């Protein structure tokens, strides 16, 4: 007799080994980013297993919550604390790694022996529990009737967690922040005492040519406006300080325009000619009337 191969069995034997491989990869890879990648793959595989267990809601929630939100948070934290921190493999407690592996193998054997054959009946399947309503609706009925108080408690938990994250993640402020009223008072005082400009500083960039922050703007007399660039950039030495370099394109364009105008002299009517032509036209029109 040919054994019946269900879609569940196919999903299990494809995704199950993948989850184990990804889990081992997560534990053994040196770089945290590789671990995160393995864990994300593992969670996607687990989502597939949920789908094979008639849990479409868990399947979607797993992908959205875990691979979407939680893994993103992990990677974001990695970005904050440095992505290239490689785990040092020195043992702090001697023999700890061997002891951990032995203990975990023992735990695994214990779990498999204790609960690995615990299910003696066949799967009932969720067809009866779900009925004609579908998985999501049935879960919603349960969540909002039997499990409504735990559900409310999770709402409180999420708000508390969000608050805690904000409190923990905010850094201490080293000096008082200058707000708009204080800034105006300071600037006016500086204007009165030192004569510094009270208004905003000029923007960087040469008009209609470059507006990147490393291009200082030019004053009407052609000199460079020092205020228009950020002091940090100037300290790093990446600011364009050569006035000719800023001016050259404009001069070249101007020269090209002048050259073209010289070439077209006589061919294209000059401004005065256009003006007189217009006047003539008006005159002829009036005559025609």
């Amino acid at each position, binding site marked *: 007799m040919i054994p019946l191969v*269900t879609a*569940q069995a196919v999903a*299990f034997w494809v995704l*199950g080994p993948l989850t*184990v491989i990804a*889990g081992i990869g*997560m*534990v053994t890879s040196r770089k*945290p980013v590789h*671990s995160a990648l393995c*864990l994300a793959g*593992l969670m996607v595989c*687990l989502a597939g*297993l*949920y789908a094979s*267990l008639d*849990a479409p809601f*868990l399947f979607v929630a*797993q992908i959205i919550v*875990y691979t979407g939100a*939680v893994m993103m*948070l*992990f990677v974001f*934290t990695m970005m*904050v*604390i*440095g992505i290239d*921190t490689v*785990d*040092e493999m020195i043992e*702090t407690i001697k023999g700890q*790694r061997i002891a951990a*592996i032995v*203990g*975990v193998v023992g*735990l695994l054997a214990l*779990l*498999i022996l204790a*609960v*690995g*054959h615990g*299910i003696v009946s*066949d*799967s*009932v399947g*969720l067809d009866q529990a779900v009925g004609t309503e579908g*998985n999501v609706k049935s*879960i919603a009925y*349960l*969540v909002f009737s039997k*499990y409504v108080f735990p559900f409310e408690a*999770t709402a409180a*938990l999420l708000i*508390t*967690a969000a608050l*805690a*994250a904000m409190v*923990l*993640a905010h*850094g201490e402020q080293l000096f008082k922040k200058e707000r708009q009223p204080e800034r105006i008072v300071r600037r006016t005082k500086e204007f009165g005492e030192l004569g510094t400009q009270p208004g905003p500083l000029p923007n960087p960039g040469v008009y209609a040519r470059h507006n990147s922050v490393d291009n200082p703007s030019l004053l009407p007399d052609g000199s460079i406006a020092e205020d228009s660039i950020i002091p940090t950039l100037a300290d790093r030495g990446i600011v364009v300080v050569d006035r000719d370099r800023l001016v050259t394109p404009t001069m070249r364009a101007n020269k090209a325009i002048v050259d073209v105008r010289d070439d077209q002299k006589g061919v294209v009517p000059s401004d005065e000619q256009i003006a007189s032509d217009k006047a003539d036209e008006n005159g002829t029109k009036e005559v025609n009337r």
Partner: protein
Amino acid sequence: MNPNAFIILSAILFSIGVLGFLVRRNAIIAFMSIELMLNAANLSLATFANVHGNLDGQIAAFFVMVVAAAEVVVGLAIIVTIFRTRRSASVDDENLLKH
């Protein structure tokens, strides 16, 4: 198919999570191992829901997911705070309470 296979897979994943938590020194990876353990528990919950033919297991798994999300938020915030003061994400360097 025999539902015990899912339980055994769940046990394997849980053990891998325990191993990662015990062996790795990086706080973030230790945290990921905790997530792995929670996921393994979720898998067994979904399996039991399928075996017993009611949805309570799936709802329990859903609550585990919510709690895990909240836990990740707070835990990672703590890791960032510790990193700010100690300039390290290794669990060996958090020894201020030792002496």
